[in-house]
């Protein structure tokens, strides 16, 4: 038995939102390495449905052991499927997509997995959620200590990120209210063409307040506590950097939430080169501009402990 007590302070960050190709895996791996190099124990979990390939970023061949082995009961504990990497303190867990995106995923199974992840022995657990938008992905995003949205300054990426954020937001609100009528109002709000005329979170809030003051209070509380983070990737100009602030402001006005703009990563040829070499950027070319941006973001995350 090598299970940890739950009392050690560990932090789970999830990287999600947007669409495939926005750089979530790249960022997850490089931030993970940075934290490991600071001396923290780090586990990377690959839950990308578009194609789990965190191992590629780390220069590891497709792993033989994966989360499936745990789910199917071939191993009894999650830590048994952890793979070592060349970086001390850094371990990898792949294959979560088997569960996260299965249509018939049972909430019991999901809870079991969440619990197992939470009981892994580590200082940081970084989960790459990929571009998925399924309920399980949303739950992972919401259960983490910090959900991090990775966006590129393009309309498609921003659009998808908002879609993801909307789903996560309403899911969180839905879980917080207790009355059946409030829940069905939220279900309605998720459908833009609903017959109740609920166009945005403000309309929803007004309706909920009309029927249940207690649930309205809960919503206010949830909105206040929902503080996702944003990383803007592949920025090419000062104007691109500003888009991060615009997204933050739009989220404030639309959802009423405080989105934390963690930072941006400049577009850099060295990133492509490092991926082709299958060598993480922060190791291969730590002086590159993109690596410096990553380092800055990672150190911000590390200081949040």
């Amino acid at each position, binding site marked *: 038995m090598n299970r940890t007590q739950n009392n050690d302070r560990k932090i789970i960050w999830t990287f999600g939102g947007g669409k495939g190709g926005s750089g979530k895996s790249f960022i997850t791996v490089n931030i993970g390495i940075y934290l490991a190099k600071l001396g923290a124990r780090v586990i990377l979990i690959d839950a990308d449905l578009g194609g789990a390939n965190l191992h590629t970023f780390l220069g590891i061949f497709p792993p033989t052991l994966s989360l499936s082995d745990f789910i199917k009961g071939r191993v009894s504990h999650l830590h048994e499927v952890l793979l070592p990497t060349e970086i001390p303190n850094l371990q990898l867990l792949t294959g979560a997509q088997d569960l996260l995106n299965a249509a018939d995923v049972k909430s019991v199974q999901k809870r079991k997995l969440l619990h197992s992840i939470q009981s892994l022995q580590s200082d940081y657990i970084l989960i790459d959620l990929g571009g998925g938008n399924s309920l399980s992905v949303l739950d992972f995003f919401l259960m983490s200590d910090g959900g991090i949205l990775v966006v590129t*300054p*393009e*309309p498609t990426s*921003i*659009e998808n990120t*908002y*879609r993801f954020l909307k789903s996560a937001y309403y899911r969180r609100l839905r879980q917080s209210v207790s009355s059946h009528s409030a829940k069905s109002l939220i279900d309605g709000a998720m459908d833009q063409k609903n017959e109740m005329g609920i*166009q*945005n*979170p*403000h309309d929803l*809030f007004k309706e909920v307040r009309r029927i249940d003051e207690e649930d309205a209070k809960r*919503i*206010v509380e949830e*909105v206040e506590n929902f503080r996702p983070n944003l990383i803007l990737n592949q920025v090419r100009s000062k104007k691109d950097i*500003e*888009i991060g*602030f*615009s*997204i933050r*402001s*739009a989220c*404030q*006005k*639309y959802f*009423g939430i405080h989105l934390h703009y963690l930072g941006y990563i400049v577009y850099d040829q060295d990133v492509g080169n490092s991926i082709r070499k299958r060598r993480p950027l922060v190791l291969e070319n730590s002086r590159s501009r993109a690596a410096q941006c990553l380092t800055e973001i990672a150190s911000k995350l590390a200081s949040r402990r």
Partner: protein
Amino acid sequence: MKRIEEQTYYEILEVSPIASVKEIQRAYDRAKETFHADSLAIYSLFNEGEIKKIQAAIEEAYRILMDEALRKSYDQSHLQTIEKEEQESHMEVEGKSPERKGPLSFTDLSIHVEEAFYRGKTLKQIRERMDVDLKTISTETKINTKILEWIEEEALEKLPAPVYLKGFLKAYAQALNLEPQKVIEGYCQLFKEEKRK
């Protein structure tokens, strides 16, 4: 969960109530960029009407907060909670609370109203002597400038029904720091006179 129309000018521009002019300018530039019609960050969240509303709110917030006098009077009437917090901290330090002022208080102006009741032109006179334009009153009271004009012109036929008019008069009176009841009573005399004719 405040709608744009419920937010303070500071919340609209996302600045602190003690923000400097420079900070307000920067916040305004950013807000303008964010809620520009072609902005990437908004089109998939807000519809056209919502964007227009936010744009208007940003302009209004900027206009008021960049004008020292307007900002001051706005602060006095809208930042009561902040004031209260400050008051509490002041009380700890100084043991007394700062003076509270009403909306648009022009305490050093003394206006003698000779007439027994307030007519439209009296209101206009008072307003002009305070050097406040209708737009400011309109912002302050959220009453359309057209209606304020009608009130001043005593355009009785155009004015809304007395029940609504009383509300407008009350707000206008408060904005001018006049006693609302006197203004309403005075103004309504006009209607009675009109009827007698």
